């Protein structure tokens, strides 16, 4: 890829007291690329995602992003209004716990339509049509549009989160363990949906997962983290089939073969 990166993180550092949660993490993410961040619990994956999304204040390092108009901006220098506008139009965030990413008391249609209304859509029929379209794309039946997510299964909630995030055609989606807590068949369908949408829309995705199978299925490149540090990075199949770092070898070998 000859293009400039969509997102560049440099030297991201976060301390919780004396403990380093993220220690000088840097990477480039290109348009249309899926980057998986893998590692065990406590390795700093989710902290990294929080730093990128601007939900956690970094102690060091920077994140720059190429905006839609082509200018590269340091995210820390964006004003609150600009940052939030970016987050709800050009970015998506699919959370591990759907209850955090959805409005549980609002219908599925309202959940999908919220971003559209947030950017100024004021035509009910059009908002509803867009919601129906997106529910269909994530394989949620049209007659569930007026049900709140509290009546949805775990897998459906994650699908709804994806629809809600993608409705404004973002270029970058952050995913925090989107498949954890789902049973394997539901996981497989969700992964299928994600893979299809990513390819179709040319999304850049930063996905945090502890599941190497998920990383293998979805990602182009992989970033292995341990103790807040990146210990290995490379093409997904390269890293998973020929791990160099001792920890990555351990990680790969501890996956149970079905």
């Amino acid at each position: 890829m000859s293009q400039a990166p969509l997102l560049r993180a440099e030297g991201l550092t976060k301390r919780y007291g004396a403990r380093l949660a993220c220690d000088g993490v840097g990477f480039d993410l290109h348009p249309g690329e899926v980057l998986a961040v893998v590692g065990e619990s406590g390795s700093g994956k989710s902290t990294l995602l929080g730093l990128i999304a601007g939900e956690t204040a970094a102690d060091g390092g920077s994140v720059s992003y190429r905006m839609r108009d082509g200018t590269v901006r340091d995210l820390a220098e964006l004003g609150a209004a600009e940052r939030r506008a970016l987050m709800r139009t050009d970015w998506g965030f699919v959370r591990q716990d759907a209850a955090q990413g959805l409005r549980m008391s609002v219908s599925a249609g309202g959940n999908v339509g919220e971003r559209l209304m947030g950017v100024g859509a004021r035509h009910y029929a059009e908002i509803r049509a867009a919601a129906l379209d997106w529910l269909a794309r994530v394989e949620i039946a049209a007659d569930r549009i007026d049900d709140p997510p509290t009546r949805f299964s775990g897998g459906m909630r994650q699908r709804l989160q994806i629809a809600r995030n993608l409705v404004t055609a973002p270029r970058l989606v952050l995913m925090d363990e989107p498949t954890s807590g789902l049973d394997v068949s539901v996981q497989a369908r969700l992964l299928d949906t994600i893979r299809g949408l990513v390819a179709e829309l040319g999304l850049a995705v930063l996905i945090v997962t502890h599941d190497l199978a998920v990383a293998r299925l979805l990602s182009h490149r992989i970033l292995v983290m341990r103790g807040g540090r990146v210990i290995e990075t490379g093409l997904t199949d390269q890293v998973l089939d020929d791990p160099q770092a001792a920890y990555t070898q351990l990680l790969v070998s501890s996956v149970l073969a079905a």
Partner: protein
Amino acid sequence: MSPAAALPQTGYNFAYLDEGTKRMIRRAILKAVAVPGYQVPFAAREMPMPYGWGTGGVQVTAAILGASDVLKVIDQGADDTTNAVSIRRFFGRTAGVATTTRTAEATVIQTRHRIPETPLTEGQILVYQVPIPEPLRFLEPRETETRQLHALAEYGLMHVKLYEDIARHGHIATTYAYPVEVAGRYVMDPSPTPKFDNPKMDDCPALQLFGAGREKRIYAVPPHTRVRSLDFEDHPFRVQRFERPCALCGAEDVYLDEVVLDDAGGRMFVCSDTDHCETRRDAIAHGESA
């Protein structure tokens, strides 16, 4: 009311509140007027009435009341309900101000959940009692977040509520506390007035002040300010219409209350604004055209 009870109370400052408190409230009011629709925090005091009975409105009224003011208090449009009578009497005794039930004669009108039918004029002040000042509250419980949303004018969420209405009922079913945008900037809860009254807020010549005692917020709509009810392009804002006129005075285009007459389904619809109704009936009795 016995004559003794109507005598001014001694031992209190004019209009019950001390001057320091009134000054603090006036500051909040000035700020609220300067930033229309913005909820200004203020240090609400305990008042000698329970929360939910208009402690916010009473404090605003106490802060703006002068000796020459004429006070009218209404509760759901009526001058003769408990809440209205006791607040009117409260200020009659602690401030010794003249009180009235006539909208046109009043300089300060404290209201719970209605705007009088008689058009307000310049120089009048309408004080609303507000239970929940935050229009976004039921969708976003975090105060830190709603403040952000107001600060950045992110009001998509308000439309989510209206969207939900249409999805559930086929039309915007919110009939009271219908959110409005003030002066093209802040979205405001007009207090639980029926949406029938929303158009009266727009370009109103009177000053409108809102006081929420429990939530400790004051906000305002200055005279002649644009107040727009939120809606969708294909579901425009509409006020409710009544099929019949007032059973007592025959007024049309007014807000009606349903009064149940017996346990056999008997009912009548009468003006919710008692002063408006009485004025019209007097006029009819005196042979003038209504």
